[in-house]
């Protein structure tokens, strides 16, 4: 804190929006019609931040309801609408777009030494599609909500529900095409715009994660689009598709839905893995352990991830043989995930670790993702899944992966690249405090849910037997802590825009092309397009002596690290 206040904050230095791409036009038009990938990233960031807090308010009301066993704060119907809204907004308007559309948009071209994405206008178009989808969501919110759960299961959604199903599905449908366009853009950019010398196995893992996630986006999202379209057509025109009265099969909907929605879990987690793979080597001052296998693991996860969807349907009545295969494949997909966790851990070995906030968030990611992943293995075993289906155990499991995992990584990325994006340093002490608070708040909220879920507390109910109250009270109290931890960065990062210390070009002494240009970067990213001659994560090249930071304490340890190469 004192650090940041003391820096070079002179009176003439009061505005952030005067340098680099930020200084390139200050009108609303210069933002809303921009084709600069960096500005579009900012547009996305503002959009998903708003949705994050809208989704957060919805679940805050749910947590308030759950403090007492009786249904006394909202009605059962309102309760259904609240958790549905939370799910839809958090999945499609925060988690899926979160890292790709903000950090992916901002960093992918910079990390590969390009001036922009391959299709800048398409990129802007993607954002507008997201906004149109968002407008449908806001309409649903104002018109009274939707009560199907985020999964839109038929025939409830397509025939019986008396809520705004079509508008909600349209929201997802439209924004889905925005995501597909982003995926197409990223794939093409990675293939055609890499700087000279930047071969595939020199790409930073964040780029690999953007590439693999784009492939999953491009191949999975259209199936959801068709599924929701068919559901909407059934609801609007009454044509039977999933309607059992006419011989239709509601399970078909579930298969198609999960064919997208399980890969969607990887759409959410792969980018997070990419972020953590950038942050950990930087603050451990070590080359990433097992780079090649980290790449293979990303590819393996994205491929195998397409073939595990049936584990969401173990109790649906699908064939026992299908259950067996999906269970087996779900165990298999854990292998590359485990490779990644072990490699991040091994990267730390004999590293010179410092505990800046991006590193703290990344540690949070590794721990919470491991918890989420391991409980995923419980749920991949059919007998345990049958016991735990539709309980808070499942809720806790996927929140450990998505919130503990993806949201932690999102905040790691936000702090790691904040100096690059805004040209300002944030107050480190506050950030560390928020990171630790978020970790504790998270466990405080979700660990009790494992216990009560295992004890039989079902999800999606506003009232419950009194013996579960202690866990619900713990969970709600934890949610309050978590809310504070989420609001803190909003406050101090906003503060830093005006009063933060000016960021140097490479405050973390990180490798990667994005650090070689100024902070914030110029509109065309690089004064001179870079040529790549080094391997990635070259934190300790042979014979390396850190001259800039060669002070009493670090010189010795630096050399020690150098000898290991």
């Amino acid at each position, binding site marked *: 804190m004192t650090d940041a206040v003391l820096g070079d904050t002179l009176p003439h230095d009061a505005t952030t929006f005067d340098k680099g791409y930020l200084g390139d036009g200050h009108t609303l038009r210069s933002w809303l019609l921009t*084709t600069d990938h960096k500005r579009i990233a900012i547009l996305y960031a503002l959009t998903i931040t708003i949705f994050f807090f809208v989704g957060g308010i919805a679940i805050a009301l749910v947590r308030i309801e759950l403090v007492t066993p009786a249904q006394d704060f909202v009605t059962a119907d309102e309760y259904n609408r609240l958790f549905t809204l939370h799910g839809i907004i958090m999945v499609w308007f925060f988690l899926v777009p979160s890292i790709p559309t903000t950090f992916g948009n901002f960093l992918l071209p910079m990390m590969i030494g390009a001036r922009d994405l391959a299709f800048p206008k398409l990129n802007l178009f993607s954002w507008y599609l997201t906004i149109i989808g968002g407008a449908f969501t806001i309409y649903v919110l104002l018109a009274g909500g939707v009560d199907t759960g985020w999964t839109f299961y038929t025939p409830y959604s397509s025939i019986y529900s008396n809520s705004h199903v079509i508008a909600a599905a349209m929201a997802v449908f439209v924004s889905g095409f925005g995501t597909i366009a982003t995926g*197409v853009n990223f794939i093409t950019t990675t293939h055609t*715009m890499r700087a000279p010398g930047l071969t595939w196995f020199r790409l930073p893992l964040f780029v690999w994660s953007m590439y693999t996630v784009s492939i999953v986006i491009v*191949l999975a999202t259209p*199936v959801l689009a068709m599924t929701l379209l068919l559901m909407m057509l059934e609801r609007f025109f009454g044509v039977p598709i999933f309607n059992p009265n006419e011989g239709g099969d509601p399970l078909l909907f579930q298969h198609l839905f999960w064919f997208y929605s399980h890969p969607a879990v990887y759409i959410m987690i792969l980018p997070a893995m990419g972020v953590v793979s950038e942050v950990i080597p930087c603050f451990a001052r070590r080359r990433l352990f097992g780079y090649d296998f980290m790449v293979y693991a990303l590819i393996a996860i994205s491929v195998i991830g397409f073939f595990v969807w049936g584990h969401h349907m173990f109790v649906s009545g699908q064939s026992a043989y299908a259950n067996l295969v999906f269970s087996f494949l779900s165990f298999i997909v854990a292998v590359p995930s485990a490779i990644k966790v072990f490699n991040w851990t091994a990267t730390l070995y004999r590293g010179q670790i410092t505990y800046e906030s991006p590193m703290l968030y990344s540690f949070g990611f590794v721990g919470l993702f491991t918890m989420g992943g391991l409980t995923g293995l419980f749920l991949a075993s059919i007998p345990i899944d049958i016991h735990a289906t539709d309980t808070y155990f499942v809720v806790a499991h996927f929140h450990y992966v998505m919130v503990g995992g993806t949201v932690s990584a999102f905040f790691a990325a936000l702090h790691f690249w904040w100096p690059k994006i805004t040209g300002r340093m944030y107050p480190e002490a506050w950030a560390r405090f928020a990171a630790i608070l978020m970790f504790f708040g998270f466990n405080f909220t979700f660990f009790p849910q494992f216990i009560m879920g295992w004890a039989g507390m079902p999800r999606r109910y506003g009232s419950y037997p009194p013996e579960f109250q202690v866990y619900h009270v713990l969970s709600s109290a934890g949610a309050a802590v978590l809310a504070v931890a989420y609001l803190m960065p909003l406050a101090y990062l906003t503060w830093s825009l005006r009063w933060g210390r000016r960021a140097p070009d490479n405050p973390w002494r990180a490798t990667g092309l994005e650090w070689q240009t100024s902070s914030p970067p110029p509109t065309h990213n690089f004064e001179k397009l870079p040529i790549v001659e080094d391997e990635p994560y070259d934190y300790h090249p042979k014979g390396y002596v850190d001259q800039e930071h060669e002070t009493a304490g670090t010189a010795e340890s630096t050399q020690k690290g150098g000898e290991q190469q």
Partner: protein
Amino acid sequence: MSDASAHPAEEAALREPWESIARQRQAVEMGMWAFLASEILFFGGIFAGYTIYRSAYPEAFWVAGGHTSLFYGATNTAILLVSSAVIALVPRSARWLSLGSFARMMLWSGALLGIAFLVLKGFEYAEDFHEHLFPGPDFELHEKGAQLFFAFYWCLTAIHAVHLIIGIGLVARLAIAGARDPRWFSQTPAVQATALYWGLVDIIWSIVFVIVYLPGRG
């Protein structure tokens, strides 16, 4: 941005952030293929549903398939195949300035064939309504599963028609913009991308024709 010595036509077609038209063309083509992959998965969803129901209700699908109009279906298939051939002439011919107006004529022919398809489709839909082939209380057929067949008939053909309308729009846009700026037209990667999209829409139709119009005809 662009090389000073570049061909003026290339310069007209060059867009940010590209420095060479060849690279830009590669990228646009690749992006289009990625999008087409996405489209195939989009239609894959409905094809999968159709396949599952057809294996569940083979007789009903056989009977219901016999109630579609083979005349409209076959004529429309012929029209779209001709349009594909016509559009396939465009990407190569457009590269020569002297053949530019020929290429644009082919684009208009493709668009007109597309419109003819839609007009016939309209007549076909009207006939189907008349024969009570829209699923609902007064649906014509009574076999269990026949309504499902026609649900897929309507959804498949309608979603395909939307794609065709988009295709006609893209082709017309290309022809108009190409007439305004023939040099841009001779170099722009949009020509190849549009032709690829048109090809996909036709291929999707040929699958629709086989699975919707041909059951029950043996």
